[in-house]
Structures are given as structure tokens and as C-alpha cells.
């Protein structure tokens, strides 16, 4: 059984590998935004006192470029493949395979993320390192912690994207949820600005009560070593909780969706 999911993950890896040109184009876009965002955030730091909300320039540079790298790795933008398949009814073919549909798709997405971390993540970070002074982790443990953090972020992102698509079981099209997701994941996730620019209480509330910071903000904070090792581990714990919660929600929604499909005929 495990072998099935490993095979599905490898398939996800290879499928993603075929989209070479799209990945290259995306890296160019990531780089454009990287330059823009750095300029904006550096202006903030310059106008402030070299350190703003716990971020100095190198930290912000890493935040921006690793952030651009994460966009493609955890995949913020939700493709509507599943929603389209639900609408056309092709999703029944998933039901005819002896594997759980949620785990099947998660496996594929993890495979994709694995490949993306070599392209979509490394690309922008390399460009950033070329033109800016990025902060390199001072603790070796950070690398491991960051890796785990990205894994958690991918799972949370997968779950949210899955839910956005699964809305198609009940709604005409998944566009509403998709719009909401794109808005919230960017704004409340730390993509537009580090969440710590907001009042402390607000930032903490967002981190704990919503899944969005677990996708961008927390992994980046782990990477720039915001706080001690204990702080980094705490962030990981928040992410892990959200990963578990979101997956449970996905499985519940999947069961409900399947029942609707099977009982009502879709």
C-alpha cells in the first residue's frame, strides 16, 4: 500500500518535470517580483532604523527571495484540475481505483513539490543571491528545520487547494473559493508583507487561528532564524497542527463529496 503512494509521488515528480518551459517562465516572473519587493521592503528598513519588526536588510532579502521560491514550491496558485474533473464527472474514475483519493493526490503533490524545490525554489533564490546580500542560516539545524517546515507548508497548501477544488461538488464552479483562497493566502500568509508588520497580537492570532501563515510566513521565519531554536520548533508545531487539521477536513469533505456523487449521481 505504501508502495502505491510512493509510486504516485514519483509520478507526480516526473509529471512536473515535463513542464520545463512553464517553470522557466515562472522563475522569471518570480525574479521580477523579487526585485520589486526587495526595493519596497528595503525602503521600509532604510526609512526605519535598519531593523524593522525584527527584520534587518539581509533577513528581508532572504524573506523576499525565498518567499518567491516558496510560491512555486508549495504552490499557492490553485489549479482547478480536480474541480474540472468533478464538473465533467471524470472524477468517478478516481473512485474505481483501490486507493484513497485524498492520499493519492497528496502523494502526487508531494512529488511535484520535491521537483519544484530543485527548480522553482532554487531559481529565485539563486537570482536573489546574485544581486543581493541574503542572510545565510547561522545554525546548521535551521536547514533541517526549514526542510521540515517546507514539507508542512506544502501539506497545508495542498489541503487548502484541495478544499477549494472540492467546493465544485456543491457549487456551480470553484471560482469563488479560488478567489478567496488567492486573496487570503497572499495577504494573510505573509506574501505581500511580513505579518509582523501588523500589531503583534494580530500577527499571533493569524498564525494560530488561520492556516495561511503556515504556508509562507512561518517557513520563512524559520529560515531567517527569527528567534531561538525553540521558537523555530514552535513554528513547526503550529504548522504540523494545521497540516493535521486540514488533512482531516479534506478527508471529511472527500467523503461527503463522494456520497453526493454516488447517491445523487453527481
Amino acid at each position, binding site marked *: 500500500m505504501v508502495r502505491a503512494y510512493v509510486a504516485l509521488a514519483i509520478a507526480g515528480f516526473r509529471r512536473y518535470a515535463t513542464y520545463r*518551459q*512553464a517553470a*522557466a*517562465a*515562472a522563475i*522569471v*516572473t518570480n*525574479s*521580477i*517580483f523579487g*526585485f*520589486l*519587493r526587495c*526595493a*519596497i521592503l*528595503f*525602503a*521600509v528598513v532604510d*526609512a*526605519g532604523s535598519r531593523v*524593522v*519588526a525584527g527584520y534587518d536588510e539581509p533577513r528581508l532579502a532572504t524573506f523576499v527571495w525565498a518567499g518567491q521560491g516558496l510560491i512555486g514550491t508549495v504552490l499557492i496558485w490553485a489549479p482547478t484540475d480536480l474541480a474540472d474533473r468533478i464538473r465533467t464527472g471524470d472524477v468517478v474514475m478516481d473512485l474505481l481505483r483501490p486507493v484513497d483519493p485524498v492520499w493519492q493526490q497528496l502523494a502526487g503533490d508531494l512529488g511535484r513539490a520535491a521537483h519544484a524545490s530543485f527548480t522553482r525554489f532554487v531559481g529565485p533564490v539563486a537570482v536573489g543571491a546574485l544581486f543581493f546580500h541574503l542572510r545565510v542560516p547561522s545554525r546548521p539545524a535551521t536547514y533541517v528545520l526549514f526542510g521540515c517546515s517546507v514539507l508542512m507548508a506544502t501539506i497545508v497548501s495542498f489541503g487548502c487547494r484541495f478544499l477549494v477544488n472540492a467546493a465544485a461538488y456543491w457549487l*456551480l*464552479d470553484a*471560482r*469563488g473559493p479560488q*478567489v*478567496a483562497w488567492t*486573496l487570503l493566502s*497572499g*495577504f494573510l500568509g505573509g506574501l*505581500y*508583507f511580513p505579518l509582523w*508588520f*501588523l*500589531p503583534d497580537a494580530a500577527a499571533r492570532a493569524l498564525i494560530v487561528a488561520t492556516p495561511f501563515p503556515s504556508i509562507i510566513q512561518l517557513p520563512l521565519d524559520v529560515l531567517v532564524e527569527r528567534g531561538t531554536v525553540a521558537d523555530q520548533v514552535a513554528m513547526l508545531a503550529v504548522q504540523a497542527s494545521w497540516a493535521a487539521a486540514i488533512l482531516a477536513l479534506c478527508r471529511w469533505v472527500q467523503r461527503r463529496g463522494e456520497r453526493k456523487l454516488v447517491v445523487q449521481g453527481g
Partner: protein
Amino acid sequence: MGSAGFTAYRHIVAAQVRGQAQYRASFAIDLVGSVMFGVIDLASVLVLFRVVPALGGFALGEVFLMATLAGVAFALADLAVGNVERLRVYVRSGLLDAVLVRPLGVLTQLTAIDVAPRRVGRVVFGVAVLALAASRAGVAVTPLSLALLLVTPIAGAVIFSGIFVATATVAFWWIESGEIANGLTYGGLNFAQYPITIYGAILRRLFAYAIGFAFVAYYPALALLDRADPLGGPAWLGYAPPAAAALVAGGAALVWRIGVRHYRSTGS
């Protein structure tokens, strides 16, 4: 386009509006969504001022004015030609051939057929906040400044529209270029929201002058605020947006024509 073309355009848009209004719930969501994008864009600018008093030498009210000018221009362009990026889909699926056969301009069809009335929401919102920003920034209420407030977003919209069309045209040569187009269109919006003093020389030369994004908000804002340009630009630059818009539109039209000709001759 000619009067016949314009009539056809009007009819197509009307039919599109009727069709889309049927999906009322989706429409409402789209409307709210598009307004929310505008809200979030502006909120992102404002949040920065929570931690610093000024950006690039400009205070909150001034930057807010620039951001809203850029926002309205972008929303207008998005409404008018936003769906031209679907060109990529049309080229890949071969649907473009059906479009080419009809006796209407290709660009007209592409923009009219996929027009999205929901984007009006963002325009209305943008105009409202622009008015707010102008009054908060203490813009003098003179005929000149009012004219500037009216003309600037339209000129800015033309500039954005030109970029929309030009970047979409690249799909004729490279299908996957859509991603990069986003970098220049949404990136352009991002760029124009802030005073160009914060950008490095290369970035400035490319985005502000070469593509012309500085004329969407920065220079007009300087004129409206009656402020001297820290970069030393002359005051009349604030009144140059229409000229810049004309240049960009001309360039985009040229690129478009070359693209269509290329497609016709190679058969994709």
C-alpha cells in the same frame, strides 16, 4: 475600428453582460472578489506605514495617492482588455482560427467576447478611494487638478492596456509566456503604486521610463501634490501621461499587428 466595428463591439459586450448576469451568485462572488483584490492591494501599502513614517521620502498620504492612481488605472485596463491574456488558450486550442475567420478585428473579438463586467466593481472602488486619497493628501481643488485627476487614470489605463496586449502577444511566439506577462502587468501595478525613488537605477530605467509606469502615478501625483521631484525631473512631466500613453499604445498596436501577421503566416 470604424463605426460598424464599434456597433458590433457594443452588441457583443451586451450579450456577454446578459449571459454573465445569469450566473448571479458567481457574479456576486466575482464582484466582491475583484473589489477585495483592490482592498488588499491598498492595505498592503498602508501596512508598511505602520512601521515607518515615510517611504522613499514620501509620507502616507502622498504614497496613498500614488497607489490609488495606479489602482484605478489598472482596474480600468483590466476591465477593458484584461482577458486578452486568454490569447494563449485560444492559440493553443486552435480556437483563434475561428476568430480570424470572422469579419471583426481579432483584438476586438478577444476583448469583447470575454469581457468581465464584474471588474467594474474594482473600478468603482478604485475611483472612490482615489477621491478619498486626493482629499486626504490635500490636493487643491482647481480645474487643472481636477482635469489631471480625470485624465491621469485614463492615460494610465491606456499604458496598462498596452502592456496587457503587448505581453499577451508574445503568446504567438512562445505559448508559455503567460507567466512572464503577469510579471510585467501585475508587477507593473506593484511598481507604480510606490514612489519611484525607492527603486534602484536599473529597475527605474526599465519600468519607470522604458515601459512608462512612472507616468501612471508618480509624476502626476507630484503635480497634484505640487511637490518637486527628488530625482530632479521637470514639473511638466506630471502632464505627460497622455503622451506616454500614446507612445505605449502605438508600440503595443505594432507588436500586436506583427504577432497576428506571424500567426497567419506560420499557421501557428
